[in-house]
Every structure is written in structure tokens, then in C-alpha cells.
């Protein structure tokens, strides 16, 4: 799932924690095998291999549900949340520390566009060769929620699933109003800039500090704008959102990161979810401050 994953739980009398943990872990692995774009055997790879071949790939209810959710997020964000934008990573190699030429980016832009994707509840098809669907924008959050559901089903009433910062809480720790979650300082790797309390529900963070590229003092986010093919540089440095579902928290955070600063703050305010955002001056904004 790309990053450290942790599971914290308080055991109840009579509940077999090992069985609950095994079920949650198995659920996360199931989703990774199904949706990882790095695995040839995954459904994602199958869909991507079929791009432009003329043959749609059949999908199950769960995948159709995720596509439907992605469609809503795309519509509600005026195209900022786009599962096809992952293809831009071919130009952006965050490890090499090199900025791509505009021509390289421009060559990829015709492959980006959720509106091109042909999908319904039974199948999905990418009409242009080399187009790619990347569930990375929602599956980690969804996996956190799914693992939490498994824990609940197995009688666990207090647990926190943490998939590299995407969290889903089952209940609260004994005697506390929520789970203490440290929000990472954008510049100091192991320090927290703030601490928030997560009650039952989901929390997701998105930030430039993860896998970022810095050239000429300009920080390039790993979150690429689907319309320009470039990272948003005038926006937030990091944002954390809480929602009933980690899935909703995650896409809200992603959308906020892709908006210019003022617009992002206004959008988060209007959304009505608890949030915390950090701007380029390392100033904190939001209702969780």
C-alpha cells in the first residue's frame, strides 16, 4: 500500500483479536492484489492492458461502486479528481529530481480525461491505447474503511487502521474522545506540526512532503493537475480531512490540494468537514487547528 501500515486495537473480553486482525489484513491484501497498478495480475493492470484494444473489461459490483464514486468526485471537483491522471507520472520521475520538458507533458495530456472512460455497472473500457486507470487515488482510503468494517464484524469495538496516513477508526480508545493523530511537519521529517483527535470515522492527509521533488527552491507536488499535467505550486502544502468514511476524507483532501490556496481554503470551509491545512508559510488553517 506504499508506506507503513499500522493497526492498533484494544481487545475486548471474548473477542479473538488474532482472527480479527487476520481478517482485516486479508481484506487489505485482497484490495491490493485487485487494484494495484504494480501487479500484472491485478484488475487495474488488466483494464490498462485492454486500453485501445476495443474490448471492455468486465467488472464486479465493488469496482463499479469505486468507478461511480470516482465519477462523482470528478464531477464535484470540476475535473480535478481524475483516476486517469496517473499516466502523467511517465513524465514526472520524482526520484530523479528532474523536471520534465513541457513537450513531454503535453504528449501525455491526450491520455488524461475521465470523460473519455467508457464505463457502466458491468464493464469499463479505456478508448485510447496507453491510457491508464489508477485507483491509487481512492483505494488506500477504501481499504482502510474495509479493514475497519472487518474488525467491527469480528467484534472489535476499538481500533485504528492506519494505511500510511489514511486512517479509519472503529470506536475510540478507552477513556478518550478519539484517537490522537499527529500531523507531520512539512519540513521536519519526524516532527508533528499539530495533533488532532479522530473519533469514530475516517481521516486522510495529502501533502507535498510525501514523494516530492524540489528544484530551484520550487516544491513540486506528487499530485499532478489533470488539466495542465503539472503539480499545483500555489496551493496548500498539506491538508488533513476527517469524514465518516476515509474514502470521502481522502478525495476531499486530494481535491483541496489541487486548488489554488484561497480557493482551497474556501472550498474546505464550505464542505463542512473537520479539516486542517498548512500553507507555504507553514501556517495552519481550518477547523481542527
Amino acid at each position, binding site marked *: 500500500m506504499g508506506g507503513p501500515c499500522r493497526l492498533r486495537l484494544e481487545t*475486548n*473480553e*471474548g*473477542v*479473538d483479536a488474532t*482472527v*480479527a486482525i487476520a481478517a482485516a489484513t486479508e481484506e487489505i491484501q485482497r484490495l491490493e492484489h485487485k487494484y494495484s497498478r504494480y501487479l500484472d495480475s491485478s484488475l487495474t493492470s488488466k483494464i490498462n492492458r485492454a486500453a485501445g484494444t476495443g474490448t471492455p473489461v468486465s467488472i464486479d*459490483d*465493488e469496482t463499479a*461502486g*469505486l468507478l*461511480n*464514486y470516482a*465519477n*462523482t*468526485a470528478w*464531477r*464535484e471537483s470540476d475535473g480535478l479528481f481524475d483516476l486517469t491522471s496517473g499516466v502523467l507520472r511517465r513524465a514526472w520521475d520524482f526520484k530523479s529530481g528532474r523536471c520534465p520538458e513541457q513537450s513531454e507533458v503535453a504528449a501525455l495530456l491526450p491520455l488524461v480525461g475521465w470523460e473519455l472512460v467508457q464505463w457502466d455497472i458491468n464493464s469499463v473500457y479505456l478508448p485510447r491505447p496507453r491510457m491508464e486507470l489508477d485507483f491509487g487515488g481512492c483505494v488506500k482510503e*477504501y481499504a482502510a*474503511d*474495509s479493514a475497519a*468494517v472487518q474488525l467491527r*464484524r*469480528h*467484534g472489535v*469495538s476499538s481500533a485504528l487502521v492506519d494505511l500510511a496516513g489514511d486512517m479509519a477508526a472503529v470506536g475510540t480508545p478507552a477513556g478518550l474522545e478519539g484517537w490522537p493523530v499527529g500531523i507531520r511537519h512539512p519540513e521536519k521529517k519526524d516532527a508533528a506540526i499539530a495533533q488532532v483527535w479522530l473519533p469514530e470515522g475516517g481521516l486522510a492527509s495529502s501533502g507535498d512532503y510525501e514523494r516530492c521533488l524540489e528544484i530551484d527552491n520550487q516544491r513540486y507536488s506528487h499530485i499532478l493537475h489533470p488539466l495542465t499535467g503539472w503539480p499545483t505550486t500555489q496551493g496548500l502544502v498539506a491538508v488533513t480531512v476527517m*469524514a*465518516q*468514511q476515509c*474514502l*470521502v476524507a481522502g*478525495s*476531499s483532501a486530494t481535491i483541496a490540494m489541487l486548488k489554488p490556496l484561497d480557493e482551497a481554503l474556501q472550498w474546505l470551509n*464550505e*464542505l*463542512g*468537514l473537520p479539516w486542517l491545512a498548512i500553507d507555504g508559510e507553514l501556517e495552519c488553517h481550518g477547523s481542527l487547528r
Partner: protein
Amino acid sequence: MARDDRNPTLLALTSSALLLPIYQGASADAPPEFTEVGVRYSRYKEDDILGRNAFGGGSERYKIDVAQFRMLAPVADDWSFALDVAWEDMSGASPWFVGEVAGQSPKVIMSGASIEDTRTEVSGTTRYYYDRGNAGLNLTYSDEDDYESKAIALDGSLNSEDGMTTYSAAISTADDHIDPTQGSVPTNTLSATKDVSSAWVGVTRIVSQRALVRFGVSYTYREGFLTDPYKFKDRRPDERKEWTLGTGYRHFFEEQNAALHIDYRYFSDDWDIESHTVDVAWYQNFGQDTVVTPFIRYYTQSEAEFFSNLADEEARYFADDYRLSAFGAFSYGVRLSHDLGNWSVNLDAERYRTDGSWGVYNGEVSPGLVDFWRYGVGLNYVFR
């Protein structure tokens, strides 16, 4: 937060997310996820009959001890199987007939402590779950010294497209054999049979996010030896047609963390019996693991057209059985349920009292009316 105040974007995201199966919780039309096993012990004990109501002074009446076992298990993706077994041990005396001494009110003559019987019932139900409902097939076999019953039942449900309404139906038929062997009293038959066929249709409707309502109509046809073999003055028609009209309501109160159950049933048959039953229960949660449920029930019935305390044995049909007399019954009790991880414990007790004057129908008051206690303890385990 009021629904209308919510940001439209958040509303759109949340509702799309919640369409994903994992967020929808347990659906009624999915097999149970885990195997569940339960055992239970119950006791039913009738109050002694009062001296003023019986010849030969007060007498101990009936009691039943029951042990139950239940297992419900998922089988493959779309099936479940349930097995129910009950063992009952019955003993005590029951009214034999009602007699009268000039100048006194009628009194019951008890059968003496002569009844001692055991009953074993085995019931299996297999259920298939489809997209918009489920269907079950049930076979039940019950055996006691003097009685044997074989029954088969089919039921099915179908949800409307929007899932707001569920239509249900059930049919059943039973084939019973009576071979009186009990006690020293002469019996009304040496061997007889009776058949029972029944049909039910119901509609359940979601009223709001916290309320459900249900309506149902049933028809039952009984044919064969419907007379009580052990009652001295009992001769009943060999056919009986019964109708019921029922409704139920469930409402959850978030502030109190409790659910209110109200059920009402109207019953009518061609023996001229009519009855009303009202059940009210309050399921009060305490924390996540404990539920305490006080409940009350009121029942009233009219008498059968051939009922009389002093049966006219010249008539074509007659009965002095208190169960066919007009009376009212009031019962109350409490259930307690506590979860301990995969275990849960249930305790319950009920007090049932009858009186000729508590009913809404006029009729002769039978001296044989029964009051009883019922209590039980159960233990369940879920294999998660």
C-alpha cells in the same frame, strides 16, 4: 446536522461512497456471516388451582421444562441452514371436566397428577438469498408419547426496486396423529388424525430512517379430530377456519438509545371465537453490550359458540374447556441480554394472569382459567 444544511458536494460524495457494498452494513437479504449456536433452558409453571374453583381442593397444575438447541450457519454464498431442536418434559394435572353441586358455582374436576409426557421437536430450515429477497423451506417433526406431527412450510420475500417495501408470503401444511395413552382417564378417541393448512401474506414498509411498519393477513384451515382427547366433556366440530389480521410497528429513539415494538393481532374463526392481542416492548440499550426489555401483553377472546361451563352433552358440539371461554389475560415481563465478545447471555421472565372480567367479551367465566410463570436462560455463541 440537519440534512438540508449539508454541503451539496459532501452530500454527493457521501451518497456515492455509501453505495459501495462495504458501507451498507448487514443486509437482511444476505445469509448470516458466521455460524451461530444457542442453547436455552425454560420453565413454564402454572399456578395451583384454587380450592374454591376445584372439587377435591386445590391442586397442582401443569409444568413444562424445555431445553432448546439452535444452530444457524451460512452455507456457500447464498444459502443458510438452521437447525432447531427442543426437548420438553411435561407433568402435572389439567382440568378434566367442570361439574356443579346445586347452589354452588361450577368447579373443575382435575385429572389428577397423571400426565407425564416428553416431546421432542426437530426442525430444519434451508434458506436461499437472492438479490431482492430470500426464500425458505422448513421441515418440522414433533414426537411425544401420544402425538406425532409432521409439517412442511415454504416462505418467500421480495423487496421493491427501491427497497422501501418488502412483500412476504408463506404457506404450510401439517399432518398430525393422536394416539391417547396418557393417564387413567378414559379418552375421547383411540386414534385420530388432523390436518392443518395455513397461508400468510405480509407487507413490510420502511416509514423513515428509524421506523418500520408491517401488515399481514393469514388463513388457517384445520380438519380432523379437533376435540381434546383427554377432556371428559369435549366434542368439537371436525373443521375450523381461522383468520388473522396483524400489524407491527418498530421505532428507534436515538436520544434514549432504545427501540419501541408494538404489535397487534385480530383473530376470528368459524367457531365464533374472536380475539385481540396487543404486545408492547421497549428494548433499552445500556452501552453497547446490554439490552433490557420490559414488555406487556394484553389478550382478550370471546367464547366458542358451543362453550358452556356445564356442557350440554345432548348438543351436537360441546366443550367446557377454559381455553374456549371468554376471558382477558394480562402478562408482563422482562428480558435481559448481555454480550461478552462472541458470547451472549439471555435471561427472561414473564407473569401471565387471566380473569373472566378482564376481557371485552361477555360470557360464562370458566373456573379453570390459568395463571402461569415462564422463565428462561439462554446462551449463544458466534463463531467469528
